[in-house]
């Protein structure tokens, strides 16, 4: 029962991830076209390239997390395909568990990188934070977008959290019941 609720949350989250990813794919197309048009009129907008690249980055990590829910990832199934049905189910569970381990490791790595507790301890003052930790994550600027880069980097913890949700849900909920998007 709990598995079913969790699965529903995971499903809704994966759909939301794919929705945003699709919007970003459309944004990439428009931004690159905008670049072509403005350059042809010798009026290039300098931040468009960088915006298109980060739209792609966000699209990639959002869809990569959703791929775990929808089982879209590319993997080598040559050996596992030869297994009889019960063994195949066990092998799939093992893969689900490995994906969960990866997701948790990613969460931990993002924690090490963003150091949220140290930031809070420094009173959200990035200069004091840097003096404490020699971690310059909150100071790094973007080249042309005019915002701090950590706003863009936030996709990594978001990705790790989504991945963890989908991986846990896959583990407690049989995979065969997951529906297509």
């Amino acid at each position, binding site marked *: 029962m709990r598995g079913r609720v969790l699965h529903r949350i995971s499903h809704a989250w994966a759909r939301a991830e794919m929705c945003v990813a699709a919007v970003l794919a459309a944004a990439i197309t428009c931004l690159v076209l905008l670049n072509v048009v403005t350059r042809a009129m010798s009026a290039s907008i300098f931040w468009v390239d960088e915006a298109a*690249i980060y739209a792609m980055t966000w699209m990639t990590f959002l869809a990569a997390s*959703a791929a775990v829910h929808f089982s879209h*990832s*590319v993997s080598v199934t040559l050996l596992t395909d030869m297994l009889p049905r019960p063994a195949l189910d066990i092998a799939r569970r093992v893969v689900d568990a*490995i994906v969960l381990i990866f997701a948790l490791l990613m969460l931990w*790595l993002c924690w090490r990188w963003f150091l949220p507790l140290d930031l809070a301890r420094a009173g959200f003052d990035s200069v004091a934070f840097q003096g404490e930790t020699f971690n310059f994550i909150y100071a790094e600027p973007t080249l042309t977008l005019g915002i701090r880069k950590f706003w863009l980097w936030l996709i*990594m913890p978001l990705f*790790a959290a989504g991945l963890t949700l989908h991986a846990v849900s896959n583990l407690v909920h049989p995979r065969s019941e997951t529906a297509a998007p």
Partner: protein
Amino acid sequence: MTAALFLVLLFGAVPISIVLAMTAMSYISQSGNAVLFDSFAQQMFAGTENYGLLAIPLFMLTGELMNEGGMTKRLVNAARVLVGGFRGGLVWINLLANMFMAAIIGSAVSQIAVMSRAMVPAMEREGYDRGFAAATTAAGGLLAPVIPPSMLFVIYGVLAQIPIGDMFLAGILPGLLMAGSFFVVVTLIGLAAEFPKGDWMSAPDALRAILAALPAALIPVAIIGGIVLGIATPTESAAVASLIAFLLGWLVYGELKPSHLSALFLRTAQNASLVIFMVAAANVFGWVVIYEAIPQKLAALITSLTSDPFVFLLIVMGALLLVGMLIDGIAALILVTPILLPIATGDYGISPFQFGVVISINLALGLLTPPVGVGLYIAASMSDVKPTAILAALWPFLIAVLLVLLAVCYFPSLSLILLD
């Protein structure tokens, strides 16, 4: 230990990108460079920060739009005019249409996916074996990496820091040679097995089919023209091509509605992210390559074996076939180019263009070779046959590509003559 983990995860059906990232994690924890963990997520993110990579979703979108907008169908029809009446005509059509499509889609995997859906049911209806139909389609997909615009060439050009337009020129002759060799293979198979016979179209029908396909031909012209003339980067010409494909499908062919776009963007996001996420994971995997100084060790080993560029290329071919079997084309390209290119140009004086053509064909070949040929699995799942059934019909094509590859290695002019 790291190598063992890599193999266990890879063959245990763990997603390839996660295999790469976890191998890198294991390497870092063993090598004692724990400080690398602090920038691990950042390094993954940085793997996607590349302007050239934008071409990937855009080319995929163009492919989707062409398919949904009825352009694929019309190109297949135009091919039917040329060869439809021959015995085994549909096989020829499949190859010809694949050649057109190769000039547009630029990714072997998505080309195989698109063409399997279009061609395999049609061939089966005319009485071909489904495994053979899927094999012909998969073989046609091998043309994608060489006929411009090729995704592998885009990424190779970014990595090797050479003009992507010139890289496309270098691929034209080898691509035509490959297509020619496929026609020879099909003829030989046709002599052995009795292919079903198709019908010739009447002259007015033929004219209509060709006229209908003409606007679709704008797309490769826009892509290649834009890049070669230096008007647009490959990324920009891909965006322009997707716009043209959309307008043609909507206004000229009337098969596409703006309301279809959301589903197309969804599929583009899904498929492009598979590839780009792999690039991101390969970026952390690259640490393993760099910290172990693999290029230097390898260069020392190979130069002690031979000083002949052709023999070097043969060694590379063998190694890449193996790599291509294990790792998907684009990820493999990203892994091997930084290792092998300095050796090829520095120690053996091979042109980076010739080298790019050789490794791209090589890795595409790997796409269709078990155990990991992603293209093989996609063709199998799209046409609902076992990979082994496809392989049984595919091997003559693989041998043909291998022969072309040897020729491209032996005669540098095949890839360089159009550049002069």
